């Protein structure tokens, strides 16, 4: 059940994570808050309906999305473009 729920929740976790980053990126409309609230409501409902499986499945789904996002970025950088992982730059956001 936990595995099944994790697979089902992956797109929702992606939606949640994407909306959160979009809000952080700036300029996102109120819609992003609505998306987040809907997904959070779904997650809470699942915890009530499946108290044993849902909490673990939700955490794993979100963690998988974040992990793949991070590893995907570095994999692309390293294998896709050949930029060494340690070449990060000296001035994040242009401030020293």
């Amino acid at each position, binding site marked *: 059940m936990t595995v099944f729920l994790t697979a089902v929740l992956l797109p929702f976790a992606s939606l949640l994570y994407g909306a959160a980053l*979009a809000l952080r*990126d*700036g*300029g996102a409309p109120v819609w992003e808050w609505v998306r987040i609230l809907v997904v959070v409501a779904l997650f809470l409902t699942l915890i009530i309906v499946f108290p044993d499986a849902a909490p673990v499945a939700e955490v794993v789904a979100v963690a998988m999305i974040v992990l793949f*996002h991070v590893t*995907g970025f570095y994999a692309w950088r390293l294998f896709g473009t050949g930029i060494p992982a340690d*070449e*990060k730059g000296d001035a994040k956001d*242009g401030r*020293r």
Partner: protein
Amino acid sequence: MEWILPLERINLKSVSSTGGKAARLGALLQAGFNVPGGFLITAEAFQLHHPVLLEEAPPPPVLVPAFRTALAEAFTRHFEPGEAVAVRSSAIDEDGAGMSFAGQHATYYWIGADRLEQAVMDCWRSLWSPAAHAYRTVWDQSVHPMAVVVQRMVRATRSGVCFSHDPLDPVPGTVVIESCFGLGAALVDGRVQPDRLKIDERGGIVDLQIGDKQVMVPASVTDASGTRLEPVPEHLRTTPVLTTREAIALHEATEQIEFLFDEAVDVEWAFDESQLHILQARPITTIAAPPVIDRRLVLFKPIAENFSEPMTPMSVDLFAAVLPRVGEFVRGRLYLDFDRIKPLLPLAVEDAELIDILLLRRSPSSLRFSLQGLLKSAALGAAAWLAFGTFWSRSARVRPEVLEIRFVPWLERLKQHSSLPVPSFFKRVLFGASPWLPAWQLMLQLNVSAGRYFLLIGVLHQLIRRWATDFDPERIDDLVHESSTMWSKRMVADVTALATIARSHDDSARALRSEEPIEQVRQLATDHPFVLALGQFLVRFGHRGPREIDLATPRWREDVTPLLIMVRNQMLHGSDEPGDRYARHLVARDLLRKTLRSSVKQAVVNAVLRRIRYYVTLREDTRHYHTMIFDAVRSRLLAVEHELLNEDKLKCAGDIFFLRYSEVEALRSGHAGARDVSALIRERRVAHLRESRCLPPETFGLRVVKRQEDRSYSTLRGQCACTGEVEGIARIVLRADQAHALKPGEIMVAPYTDPSWTPLFPPLAGIVVGIGSYLSHAGTIAREYRIPCLVDVKGCIERIPDGHRIRLNATEGFVELIHDSADMELEPDAGGEDSISETSPVPDSADSIEAWR
């Protein structure tokens, strides 16, 4: 033993003591050609001062008194007092049939009697220059003695090179003439884009490419060691160098020289005010061979369609470091590795079809997916979704105004404060350094992901085909109406506004109409409304310019000429009618609403249309910001170049773009010097110019199936980028800043377009582009202005005569020459669909090259 010989006494038999160059000059003089007179310092004189020849450079010799006396006497005998001469190497192994040593040894211009001895010793010494040493090493040669030619200087107003056979085409019979203003040094060093003429064996001009001759070495230069390059007056830059009569005379002379030496030759020539002078003739040593590529490659269209010229070595070096490993650069153009791409695509297609897909010639609705391929790539797709799905969804939420508000200040801060080396800076701003960065800092990824509108347009076509059968498919393009805040639209609006301001003031209108608009605009007061508006425009769009993908190209902020020419065109011919286009959009939307009837269907179609509009805008806007990144990288490179020029490690502005970054670092750190890179730069500049004249091959190691429809000579096929049908006058425009003759209502025929061409579009009746795809810039902007547009029309530049009437059918995908004029009639081409017919009209009159053009 003779140290000095008059040139008239030399012939081909004396080559062992005079060198190939001098021997041929003597033979030419004896045959009656107009060769500047002078004398030769023989190899014996060299051996007198260098009795032992080693690979290492010897210390400078002390000239023997008897030789000094003989040299002074020869100068007095051959030249007037105070006359300047050219001192030129003629090494014994130079200008042979196997090796030319072209540019490896020294030549000095405008040398007076007082500097003659030093110039002769410097010429001898160039035998041990790093460039000559490297050349000998490659050809496994030892050091040979050197003779030196001392010749009268020609006050060349025009000069160049003439090949008795086209070096790029092994088939004999065509003479190629390259010409520039002033002395030929700028041409042979590859610093100027020359005019290029081809004359067939019957004496007819079969091809003429007018170069943008930005610089020249003036005939009046007196200091060979100083900065010799001067800008060519603006009105001459794109004016043909030679008249037809002069070109034919040169052709005849070259054929006679080829007959004299009984081999293919390249001839250096110069015209003073009236006379043709032959400066050099040597065997053509290289017939260009295609590069040996052992992989199967397909041209990467999204870059090629914006920029058909090759990138300069610095651009290639920097881009190659950041682009995915599924491709590689060949002679300055990016290609995809067919065998790496193929397994990644779940398509049930043959190789030929896949080539068409990669060349963006097939619409998504015609693709067939393979079940096996889909299953095989399902896992890959799932992993890709997990890895990139987040960015995919984030890029669907980026608002254009956020890009403007946040990206621009961020890039400015980074430009000012970053201490990263240029390549790292480039990677940093293009790819970001962390997955947590805001989406607006990942501009390249945004641009790529915005390309999904192509799929959505396929969806839109399907929906309308199923739900609105009565809706005219030709109106679908009218439904897509991009945001009015899109940067390309703003740029057109601003150019139009500039033209309106210029038109409303007599002095600015007069300045723009003049032959030297830059000089005239500079004369305007600093608070003149046009000058103020121009300044504001450059603040917003100064980082844009022609061929802006290549880092070597000056931006509008640096060279405002192309922009002023666009403003002038708009001022003289502009007739933008945005109202009509918006009205068409409203009519199409209304018709669709009536045809769809169901509110649910309407909502679905409207949602798809909104998304298309969003992604089209995002894609165009991210292009605008990309160019800011390229501009920032260019500024950094120019700062490095300035430093190297001040240290005399580089000779000329722009040289840095013909080096790799590692070579620049070697120069900065002192591990390499000016001598180490000068020959390299010259060689790369010449190669770049040569490549610029050729359209890139679409594939390597793969056979492209020719379309049957191409076989008709008067009809050319292409891809429909914006549907519609129109008939009108074809106007060939090779570069955005050469669009002087373009008039409203004409059909523009161009080799490619990039965003800097946008202001040319509004008044046009139609557009035909030699390269490109539905997604290309030309297609996007044409749809926005609802101008019939056909892209990927092979041979359009060569086969559509300028000023000819054509019928453009961008609905069925062809352009047709209308034979209503006897003097422009074209014959069917028996030689194959891609060859150029020799029957293009050839002028007879002396000054008609411009007219023929």
